[in-house]
Each structure stands twice: as C-alpha cells, then as structure tokens.
C-alpha cells in the first residue's frame, strides 16, 4: 500500500438521522488506486459514508477532503465522483448508449469524443451490440454492466459501488466479482465498494474497513482482517470462529502466555501485554482445528469433546462438537480420500488440536 497516495480523507465525520447516530466521528483515508471495501451489517453506516462522499447527504460535522479540496463546498453534480447504485438506477426512457453518454453530455464533452468514449466503455463491459437497447430489454447482469459503464465513462477520481452485486444470483455475482477486479486494474480508478457480504469483501478488496454502529472496527488487508481480527465483532462477522473464554495464568516468554480455558492449560501466542489474571478470549477458526480420535492423543495441549452433528460440505466435513463445559465448537476438515477412518460417529469422543500461533487472543470484552 506504500506506493499509493492519499486520495480522500474523512476526518471526524458524524451523521445523525433523527436521534439515530449513523456515523460517529469517523476517520478514514482512501488511497489513490486501491480497491477499498466498506463491510458491515445493515445499519452500520456504510451506505451513509458513500452518500456523504457522493454528496447526497451532508455530514453533521467533520470534513471530507478529496485531493486537498474540501468537498463540503462542492455540490454532488460537481464532484469528480461517480456511483454505481444498488438498484442500478438506469434511465428507463433512454437507450443503453444514451444512458452511458449522459454524464459526458452533462459535462459538455464534444459530440465526437462522446461517441468514442461511449463505444469504448461499451466494449469494456462487453455490451457493444446492445447500444440501442432500452434498459428493460437487458438481463440483470447486463443492466449491472451498463450501470458500471455509465459511471466509469466519466473517468471519476473515485468510483463508489453501493451493494452493486447484491441483486444478482450467486453464479453471476461471482463472475461480476472477477469482472470488477479486472476493470479496476485496467482503469486504475479507486473503487470504494460497500457490501454486507464478507466473502465478497475478502475476495475483491485491497483493504477492508469493517464498520459497526457508525464506528470503524478494523482497517486492514483481507488477510489481516481474517487472521488477526482486532476485536470480537470483527472476528465473528468475518467468517466463522470458535470462541473460548479463559484467563492468563502466567507469562512464559515475550510472545507466549499460559491460559486456562475449558479446564485445560493452553500455551498461546500473543503480542498483547497480558499479565496474570487477565481475562481473555481465545479464538480459533474451524479450519485451524484438527480432530483426532481421542484415545490416540499423546500431545498434552488439547481439549476433548463429543461430536453431536456432522455436516458434509463437499470440500470439507464440518463437525459440531460439544465440550465438557457445554461450549460448542465447529471444526472444518478437508477430506482425505485415502483415509478409510475419516468419518465420525455421533457422540464419538474426539480431541481438538491446533498449532500454537494459529489462535487469536483478545482481551475480554463482555460475557456472551
């Protein structure tokens, strides 16, 4: 990310709708040329951020700077920012060509240039032969591509995409994810993508901003967010995770502490300066857990439990385990076709193991 220059800076932006604080002193820097995703549950304020950048909504306080220029003084129609709307919002009375040419016409681009640029945009989204169609004659995926072409043809500094793929079916959505990444690389335009779909966020973004209740929870690359969640919210929102509550017994060395959880002594790796008696959450992804049939375990660090449900997922076998304390755990293992014993009976006793360092240790937040 170091080669990128800051493009847009939100500092201390707050927004309240009738007693409901949607954004709470939000700070965010968006770098030139990156694919940034705002991820969060519905109502977390992600769409409001987009609408403030686009100019449809006015922030209550704080500032929005684009290229050192304060956007507050610029009306929406004058900002070098374009939006791909969730509903596409294509003009129903215009052809595909007229839709895409609309922005250029508004900016008084010469007619000959309009033709060249619209044709180029149509080629880019592979809709060359659809120029004279009306939006209602197109499929959902085609409408989506027109909406993207209509926005990027203006060569905005910033392209805002508001849950732009959520209306498409699963397969089309995957295709469009790849298509969007290709476009972003090809155009070298900064994309700000809003979604509540964590899988989409992980697969497309350079950086992800996790939002909840109008506050930034974590900013980082998909890998950082997934592997080192900053708090319980992020850990739970992105992917599945198992949570064990315990407390620190003693510090072993600079990177390791001993924790008691689920009635066992665990050695865990952490950078956090925990001291003895600190309450902690130990978090483990389902795919990081290895199950062994209990009697075979020789290793000292492990937890035991009983399988109460198995779910075949094709690629993986997901096992649901109840520990002695009642804590429920999910373990997700890849199939080993050569192992004839790879299968569990219900109520079978198993041992959970993992490699030290794969767990995430967080300070205790609240009970649940």
């Amino acid at each position, binding site marked *: 990310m170091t080669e990128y220059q800051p493009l847009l800076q939100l500092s201390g932006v707050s927004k309240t709708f009738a007693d409901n604080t949607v954004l709470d002193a939000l700070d965010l820097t968006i770098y030139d040329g990156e694919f940034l995703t705002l991820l969060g549950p519905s109502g977390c304020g992600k769409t409001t951020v987009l609408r403030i950048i*686009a*100019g*449809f909504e006015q922030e209550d306080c704080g500032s929005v700077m684009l290229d050192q220029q304060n956007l507050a003084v610029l*009306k*929406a*129609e*004058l900002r070098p*920012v*374009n*939006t791909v*709307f969730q*509903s*596409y*919002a*294509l*003009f*129903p*009375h215009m052809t595909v060509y007229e839709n895409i040419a*609309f*922005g250029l016409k*508004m*900016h008084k681009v010469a007619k000959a240039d309009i033709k060249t640029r619209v044709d180029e945009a149509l080629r880019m989204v592979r809709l060359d032969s659809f120029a004279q169609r*009306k*939006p*209602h*004659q*197109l*499929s*959902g995926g085609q*409408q989506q591509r027109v909406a993207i072409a*209509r*926005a990027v043809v*203006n060569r905005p500094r910033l392209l805002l995409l508001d849950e732009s793929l959520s*209306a498409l079916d699963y397969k089309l959505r995957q295709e469009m994810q790849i298509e969007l990444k290709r476009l972003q690389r090809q155009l070298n335009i900064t994309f700000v993508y809003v979604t509540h779909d964590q899988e989409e966020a992980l697969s497309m973004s350079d950086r992800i901003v996790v939002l909840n209740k109008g506050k930034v929870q974590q900013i980082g690359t998909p890998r950082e967010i997934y592997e080192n969640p900053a708090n319980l919210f992020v850990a739970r929102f992105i992917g599945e995770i198992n949570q064990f509550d315990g407390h620190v017994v003693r510090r072993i060395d600079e990177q390791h502490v001993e924790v008691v959880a689920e009635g066992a002594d665990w050695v865990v790796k952490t950078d956090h300066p925990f001291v003895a008696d600190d309450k902690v959450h130990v978090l483990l992804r389902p795919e990081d857990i290895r199950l062994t049939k209990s009697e075979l375990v020789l290793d000292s660090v492990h937890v035991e439990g009983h399988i109460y449900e198995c779910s075949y997922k094709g690629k993986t076998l997901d096992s649901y385990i109840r520990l002695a304390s009642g804590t429920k755990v999910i373990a997700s293992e890849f199939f080993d076709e050569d192992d004839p014993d790879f299968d569990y009976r219900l109520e079978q006793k198993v041992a959970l193991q993992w490699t030290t360092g794969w767990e995430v240790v967080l300070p205790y937040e609240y009970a649940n």
Partner: protein
Amino acid sequence: MNMQINQFRFWAIGLATSWLALFVLVPSLMVLVTSFLTRDPDFLIRFEFSLDGWRSVFDPSFISLLWDSLSMALITACICLAIAYPFVMCLMSLPSKWRPIILFLLIVPFWTNSLVRIYAIQYLLGKKGLINDAMLGIGLIDKPLDLLYTPFAVIFGLSYILLPFMILPIYSAMEKLDLRLLDAAKDLGANAAQRLWRITLPLTLPGIVAGSLMVILPAMGMFFVADLLGGSKHALLGNVIKNQFIQTRDWPFGAALSVLMIILLSFMLWLYYRATKLSNRQGGINDSDF
C-alpha cells in the same frame, strides 16, 4: 366449479358489453348516421342521404370558430399545466403525510356544483365585482376594467374548473417517479434544470398528456362557461353543438360536429398512448427478464 366461473364470466362480461353497446355504441352510431341525413324543418331530420351537415363543418366561417374554441382550450391547458406542474413539484417536496390532505383540499370545491361556481366567478369579474372594486379601492385603476364577457374570462373560468384534472394525473405520474434516478442524474453531473428537463419531464410525460387531454376535451365542450363568462361572442365547440340541436335545429350539422369531436378525442387518446409508450417506464431490476 369451472362451469360456475365460466357462467360468471359470461354474465359479467356480457352485462358490461351490452351496457356499453346500448348506451355508448348505439347512440354514437345514431349520431354518426344523423350526420349524413337531411335537415327537415318539421321533423328535425329526414331519412335521406345528404352531406350538408359535413359541408357546414368545412365552411371557412365555422373552421375559424372551431379554431377559436380549440385555441382557447389549448391556452387553458397551458395555463393549467403551468400552474399544476410547479404545484405538484412543491407538493412532492412536502412530507408525504401532508400530500393527501392538500389533494383533499383541492377536491373540496368540487362538491359545489360547477355552475354555481361559475356564477361566483361572474360576480368576481363583473364591472362592480370584487376585483374591480378592490383595484379601484387601492387606486390601481381609475375606472372599472372590462373583465367579464372577454376571452380572458372564459379561459379564467375554464382554468379554474379544470385545474384539478391537470393536477391529479401529473401527481400520480410524479409519485411513480423513481427518485433514485434523480440521484443518479445528479451523480452524473446534471444540475437542477437538467434533471428536470432530461429526467423528470420525460418520465412524467404520460401524466402531462393525460392531464392535457382531461383539460382540453371538456374545455371545448363546457358551453355554460362560455355562456356565462364569454357572453355570446366567445363560443366553444360545445356551444355550437348545443345551438345546432336546440336553437338552430340543424341536427345533421350538430351530429357532424359531435362526430368531429369524437374523432378529435380519439386522436388525442392515440397521442396519449404514444406518449406512454415513448417514456417506457418499465426498468430497473424487477423487469430484467425477457
């Protein structure tokens, strides 16, 4: 079960069809036939083919009268549109709970007979009417203006009576307008005037055309407005038709005029159909399938 539905269908459609046939089709045909018959001083019409009725329609003196009536109706429609469109745009900017109340207030005067309200306007516009009195009172004019019995008075009366017929269709079209399209236009650099001209107007065109039809057609026929406010000089097509049947007793001519009006109406409905088709309002993700 199926039988019952079929029977119900037969009776429901049959009843509606015979009603329309009996009270719309047959009278219309009678008018059409009458327009090709001969005038008779004693029995009104004689069953003898004649083109006299239609010849009178294409008489230059009548054409100019038709033109007067049509232009008055058009001016009325323009005035109504000029008031209704901004009115509806203001209405849409109000919180949605206020809109039905305001529309209701708009309808309230219609519970009073329009003839009574035209008499009120007559009083308002007269030499000793409220408007002249007021303007004399504040010294704006020295002697009363001739407001009544002018084309102005007729157009004023027609606009007043017909304004809601312009407002309601425009309102219903404006309500269907997807506001996200305006956001999109703004996003693409369109200023307020460009948004109005390129998005709002084309997409509410069906409402404008519907409203104009609902104003122009009655505006050509409301003979009592012309009688009371225009005197004898400023006649509408409706006055002429009424006079042919009741005073001049030239039924073939009156019938031909009625047919002409029906043709005019059909033409305008065709225009309306074209306008709705032109601004294809299907779109968005719901109608994405072929």
